[in-house]
């Protein structure tokens, strides 16, 4: 029997959806390994232990909650030290993180501290004897690698949205713990986490992403994209590099090779040509819709559904129709 560790991310004192996915993945892996336990670690400000109680619903046998007033923001050094110590003393077969800005920062540090390797952006995993075999996109997603991880614990970070959080209730015993180092002693301190804009959904979590490109012509026209996103109700806003370079949107909204990698249920590309570097960040979305006035735009090659037309005409009509459709739900 082998236990599996899951790191659950929090932001602004809330459990992130990617954390539920990490626990779900750990549950699946523990079951493949033969009835192992899942232990989930979460760090956050006072109150996080109570919020983390729900992790039991997703298959955590034990929730380890580290509460500290200095942990409202992410602390890379506290998280690394606490996770590495816990993983070492717990003797886990595997440790699962998320491929987010935070997980990409944390998982390699923890792995190096444990003297093992790391694979990020994992699409799926399997156990074969002593090996953990994972699939991982390479060359900006143009090649899929099957990798054998021989070290133990195997440290992996899952791509967001490839595993849906699934109910699988376990004991979910909550234990509180101290940070492994004093947060005040950290040499790296996050002084502020600034949300991109009024209550906007997180790009790594949103089931729907509405992304805009240069076809919108000007910064103020991004309102069309925001309106469509709010019509869906569960959508985040993304952008191309053309748009973030021109300062219409912050760089944190950029999707693509050098921006965020996303795979939502639905991706709506508005006035986006579909350059290879953009496709690299979103081609694994489950359903892709494209609206572009050029019928030969490369985005239509990856789109499940396309409308050839002017965004200024099509998007307001779509926003209205989506709003109507959701009303009758």
């Amino acid at each position, binding site marked *: 029997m082998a236990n599996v560790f899951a790191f659950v991310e929090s*932001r602004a004192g809330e459990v992130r959806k990617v954390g539920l996915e990490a626990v779900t993945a750990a549950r699946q892996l523990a079951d493949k390994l033969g009835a192992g336990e899942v232990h989930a670690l979460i760090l956050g400000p006072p109150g996080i232990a109570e919020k983390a109680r729900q992790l039991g619903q997703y298959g955590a046998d034990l929730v380890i909650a580290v509460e500290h007033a200095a942990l409202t*923001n992410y602390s*890379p*050094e506290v998280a*690394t030290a606490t996770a590495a110590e816990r993983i070492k003393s717990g003797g886990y077969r595997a440790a699962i993180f998320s491929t987010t*800005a*935070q997980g990409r*920062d944390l998982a*390699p*540090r923890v*792995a*190096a501290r444990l003297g*093992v*390797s790391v*694979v990020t952006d994992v699409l799926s995993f399997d156990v074969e004897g002593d090996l953990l075999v994972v699939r*991982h*996109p*390479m*060359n*900006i*997603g*143009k*090649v*899929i*690698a*099957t*990798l*054998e991880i021989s*070290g133990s614990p195997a440290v992996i970070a899952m791509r967001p949205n490839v595993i849906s959080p699934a109910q699988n209730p376990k004991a979910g015993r909550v234990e509180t713990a101290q940070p492994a180092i004093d947060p005040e002693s950290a*040499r*790296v301190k*996050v002084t502020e*986490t*600034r949300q*991109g804009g009024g209550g906007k959904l997180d790009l*790594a*979590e949103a*089931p729907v992403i509405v992304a805009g490109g240069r076809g919108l012509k000007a910064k103020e026209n991004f309102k069309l994209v925001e309106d469509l996103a709010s019509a869906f109700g569960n959508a*985040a*806003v993304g952008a191309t590099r053309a748009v973030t370079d021109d300062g219409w949107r*912050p*760089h944190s909204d950029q999707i693509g*090779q*050098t921006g*965020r990698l996303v795979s939502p249920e639905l991706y709506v590309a508005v006035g986006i040509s579909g350059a290879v570097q953009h496709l690299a960040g979103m081609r694994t979305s*489950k*359903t*892709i819709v494209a609206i572009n006035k050029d019928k030969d735009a490369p985005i*239509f090659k990856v*789109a*499940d*559904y*396309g*409308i*050839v*037309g002017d965004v200024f005409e*099509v998007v307001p009509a*779509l926003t209205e*129709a989506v709003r109507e*459709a959701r009303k009758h739900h």
Partner: protein
Amino acid sequence: MKIAVCIKRVPDMDVRFKIGSDNASIDETGLKFDINDFDAWAVEAALQLKEKNAGSDVTVISLGPDVVQETIRKALSMGADKGVQLKADRVPFDGLTIAKALSEELKAGAYDLILFGKMSPDSSNGAVGPMTAELLGFPCVTAISSLEITNGKGTAKRELEGAQEFVEFSLPAVLTVDEGLNAARYPSLKGIMAAKKKPLEVKPAQISNPQVRVRKLELPPERKAGRIVGEGAAAVPELVQLLQTEAKVL
């Protein structure tokens, strides 16, 4: 300031890749190679710091076969002072193996700052920078898109998913560079001439046993051909219908 920048030679991604006959590597025939974009931004950041801080020097380090000397020369022609090739037959996938070899070289260097790219597009793993930081015991900030250094203290900004983090750190430190920090300069003719005379040291890389191996590479399945629903706003009702009944996302 003493600055090191770790740089990787990577293929141009704007091609259709072919899998090699061993099914576990990329067929490199006809591929064009250059410095990883993130690493070029890291070199640029180092050069800007050097220009601001008299008496600084910038060392670039690349692990790989002799062809990486071309990439090192490019960084030298941008303005770096010296290069180190950690010679290996090939670049392993395993980030820990690379990080161990780099940290062996870096630990004796007494660097104030060690810069990496956020990620290399070929491995797409983003592991080597933070792993090297851990092995050296240095503070580390990953994926920075702004940087300010004054009196041995640094501040930086990181882009999260739809949010930004503002970070303070002490030196010496390891930083990994995201897009948006700067625009990399092109080597000038004078720079290219000067680079030919700059020192490029070749040493064997200390390659440890990898814990991650590539079993197989495949091209992903093509997305099944989509369809144009129609033209203009008239196509909207059918699209919404399809999203409800076929894609079931609405």
